[in-house]
Structures are given as C-alpha cells and as structure tokens.
C-alpha cells in the first residue's frame, strides 16, 4: 500500500504570499494522477515541497500514514518517494550505467547479496529503454534530450519507489518520444502498482495515461475528476488550461 496524503500544505518563498495555500490532496495506492495547471499554478512547488526541497510553512505530507514532514529529502527518498525533476536531471559527468546504479543504491538495502539483484534491476531498465542499453558507457553529457529524459525516468524506476513524482517529463521533447515515455510509465504503473503523480503542461498526453486529473490554479485545487471526464469538459479546459 502506498498512498500519498497531503494535508493543509502551505508553502511560500521568502515573505511573499504563499504559492500553495492549505492544499489538500490524496493520491491513492496504484493511482496515476495528472497534476495540471498553467505556469505559476504551483505544480513544481508542490512536487519540490513533497520531497522537502522547499520547506513547508505548515501542513503535513504522509506516505502510507507515516508523517514525512520532519524528514530530510534524502530520508524521504529512502522511504519510497521519488522525484524526476524538470529539466532532465541526469548527472552529466557520470555514465548512463553509473546514473542507473546511483538510482538503485537503496533498493534491497540491508539485504545480503544485494549487488547482483541491483545489477538485475539495472538490466531490466535496459530492456525497457533500448537506447540506454546501447549507450550504457556513454557520459551523460553526450546524450540527446530524449535519451536524458529516458535515463532520468529509468533512474527513478530502478529504485522501485512507492510513489513516483514527475515534473513535466515531456518538456521540449518530440511527440513520439513523449508518447513512448508516457507509455512506459503507464505500463509500469499497471504492472507494478506504482503510484504516480504527474505534473504536465501537455494536458492531452497526461490525461491519456492518468486515471484522475487534478487542476491547480493559484495554489489551490480547483478541479479533481476522472481523467476522461476532465478531458471532455471544454468549459474547464478553457478556464484553467487555456485551450
């Protein structure tokens, strides 16, 4: 069971007005939730606050009922939360294989003979993302944009998180690559019961893989409905998503 619960979360920068104000949201176990909204709606801030990269002014973040609020970013990750941040967060000085090994570090932690099991987990990612297998010894900085985003996603998946948070994985990528990435994401969610919160500007793509859509506007949830219903509501789309 891996339910992510956000209770009355308030986050702001400096003395300014809060970017998120008393936000309430629950991402159920195995659910794929699309987080939608215009620029400045607070999507990135929410994801960063969930990982503790931005301190919360008040409110709580719970993973399976356990309070994460006081934990450091590193400990939240080790508890099963993973974030693929915006902008292809590959460590460009390391190779593809090293990036993946880094993602797998805490998997099977504390178990005996975890090395071969981790290698096998990395091997699975190469099967999932064929271009990465071909370039496993290439340094991160030689990868194309699409390959980098693949690597960022693979590196998050190889750690087998309970809840995966993605910030605009489609940014700047060709439609074909986006479709491929989102397809892998949906397959993984179906196969492993992975819980996903997907922040996207690409509304159509996000709603096609999500089972629920949440629209943020000025730091508040203004709509929370099944994905198909949201995709079919022109008034809502027009009001908050601008098309």
């Amino acid at each position, binding site marked *: 069971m891996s339910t992510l619960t956000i209770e009355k979360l308030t986050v702001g920068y400096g003395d300014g007005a809060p970017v998120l104000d008393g936000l309430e949201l629950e991402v159920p176990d195995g659910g794929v939730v699309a987080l939608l909204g215009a620029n400045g709606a607070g999507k990135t801030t929410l994801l960063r606050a969930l990982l503790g*990269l931005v301190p919360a002014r008040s409110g709580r973040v719970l993973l399976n009922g356990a309070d994460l609020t006081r934990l450091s970013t*590193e400990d939240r990750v080790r508890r099963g939360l993973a974030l693929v941040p915006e902008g292809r967060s590959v460590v*460009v*000085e*390391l190779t593809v294989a090293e990036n993946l090994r*880094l*993602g797998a*570090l805490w998997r099977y932690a504390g178990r005996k003979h975890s090395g071969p099991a981790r290698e096998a987990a990395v091997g699975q990612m190469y099967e999932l993302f064929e271009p990465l297998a071909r370039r496993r010894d290439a340094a991160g900085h030689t990868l194309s944009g699409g390959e980098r985003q693949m690597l960022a996603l693979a590196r998050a998946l190889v*750690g087998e998180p309970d809840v995966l948070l993605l910030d605009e994985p489609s940014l700047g990528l060709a439609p074909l690559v986006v479709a491929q990435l989102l397809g892998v994401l949906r397959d993984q969610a179906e196969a492993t019961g992975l819980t996903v919160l997907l922040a996207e500007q690409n509304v159509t793509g996000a709603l096609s893989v999500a089972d629920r859509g949440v629209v943020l506007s000025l730091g508040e949830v203004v709509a929370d409905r099944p994905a198909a219903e949201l995709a079919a509501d022109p008034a809502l789309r027009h009001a908050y998503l601008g098309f």
Partner: protein
Amino acid sequence: MTEMDPAVERLVFLMSTGLARGAVLALFALSLVIVYRAARAVNFAQAAMAIVPVYVAFAVTSASGSYWLGLASALVVGALLGAVVERWLLRLVPQDNPLPGIIVAIGLVMVLQAGLAIAFGPDHRPVHAPFSQRPFDVGGVSVLSPYDLFVLIVAAVVMGGFAILFNRTSIGLQLRAAAFAPETSRLLGVRVPRMVTLGWMLSIATAALAALLLVPTGLGLDPHAADVLFVNAFAAAVIGGLDSPVGALVAGLVVGVLASLVTGYASAATAPLAVLALLTVVLLVRPHGLFAAREARTA
C-alpha cells in the same frame, strides 16, 4: 662495462629524483582536487592543515620510536582535522560566494601556523627518514634512494586506492555524484553533507601524508614546511584541470621532474619560475587545464 657519459648520468639522477618529488606533489595536488570536488573551492589552508598532523606524527614517533605509528597517527589526525574544519568552521560560513570561505581559510592558516610556532617553537626540527636517503648505485649511475622508492610506492598505492574507491565502490559513486550534482544526488537518497565531510577527511589525510613524506627530504619540520609544496601542487592541480585526479597525478609528476631538471641545470631559485612558466603556457593553450572535462552536449 663502459663508463656512462657523465651528462647522461646526471640526467638520469635528476629525472629519478624529480619523479620521487613529483610523486609527493601529485599526492598533494590530488588532495587539492578531492577537496575542490567536494566543496567546489580551493582550500588555501591545505598546507597549514597538512603540517599539523605531521607535528603529531613527529611527537608520536619521538615518543614511541615507531615511524609507522607516527604515519598512522598523521592519517587519523588529518582526517579528524578535515572533518572538524568542515563541520564546525567552513559550514558556518556563507556558501553563496567563495570569498568568505577563502578569507576564513587564510585566517585558519595564521592560527594554525602561529599555534604550532607557540607550541613547538619556530625552529626547524630535523626529521629522519625511515629508509636511507643515499641513492642506489646502478652500474655506476646514482638513481633513486631507498626512501625515494618508498615514497613512489606509497604514492602509487594511495593513487590506486583512490582509483578503486572512486570508480568501483558505492561510496565513491556517491562522492562523485554529490560533487557534480548535489541536488540531484539528494533526490537519489545520497546524504550530500556527509559526502562533503568525507571528502574533506580524505583530502586532509592525503595532504598530511604528502607533507610527512616531504619533510625528511627538506630542511626539516617547521610550521611552514609544506608552504612551497602547496604552491607547486596548486600549480600542478590547475595544470591538470583542478577537477581531475588523473590530471593531478600526471601534472604532479611533470612539475616534479621539471623542477628537478631546472634546479640541476640552472639553479634552485629558477625552479619556481619554470613551474610558473609551464602553468602560464598550459593555461594559455587550454584554459581549463589538461584533463578538464570535455565540453558538454547542449543540444
């Protein structure tokens, strides 16, 4: 057997001595690279921080009569000093710009060197090498001394150890990731502050080892005994690319041999100028150093 040409004999001797001095330089340059990687800053207090453990080693060796006990204590004290300075001094300094850290480091140099002079006196203390410094005689040619050989072996073992640590272990992977991309590393569960402290510990222990190996070949132990080593090793680290352990190794050996040749054929006073000239030429041709990371793909 025919007598060797005296000129060739002299060249062989200078080259081999230069290699041994270069190995010490390379070790010290490596320590600067490690701390640069961990903290993204040049540690201007490296020489003073390296000489404190050498004093401890000197005291331990004098008291116990064992060189090896002294060497081990230098490594331990170096690592502890690195941790203490990073955790309780530099971490308190604003990190958003490098200047406060540099000023604090220079202040630390003054405190440490003055403290040593107060505690032990400002005079040179003669330090004995654990092995003879009389060169081997190979076919009538003077080459390395047993102590030079010891220095080369120690340097090779330490370099090899670091290569394995950085490239083959989980801790090494975390150290590198934390140095290159701190925030991404935190998002992958790496405890970045702990990695920074570990980097400082490894760096100062290595610097202390280099200073300990150097002292018997110089005038002896005094609070400034590692100062010239720092200057030359800094030049070597910059020539090598500041971010590259391999660069530190290669440039350290090159600078060592160059300084030895210039000292032998010209004068000791000219050697620092030659090192500076080499540094200038390398930076003119390759501004980021010989082994700096190649340009990243941006499209």
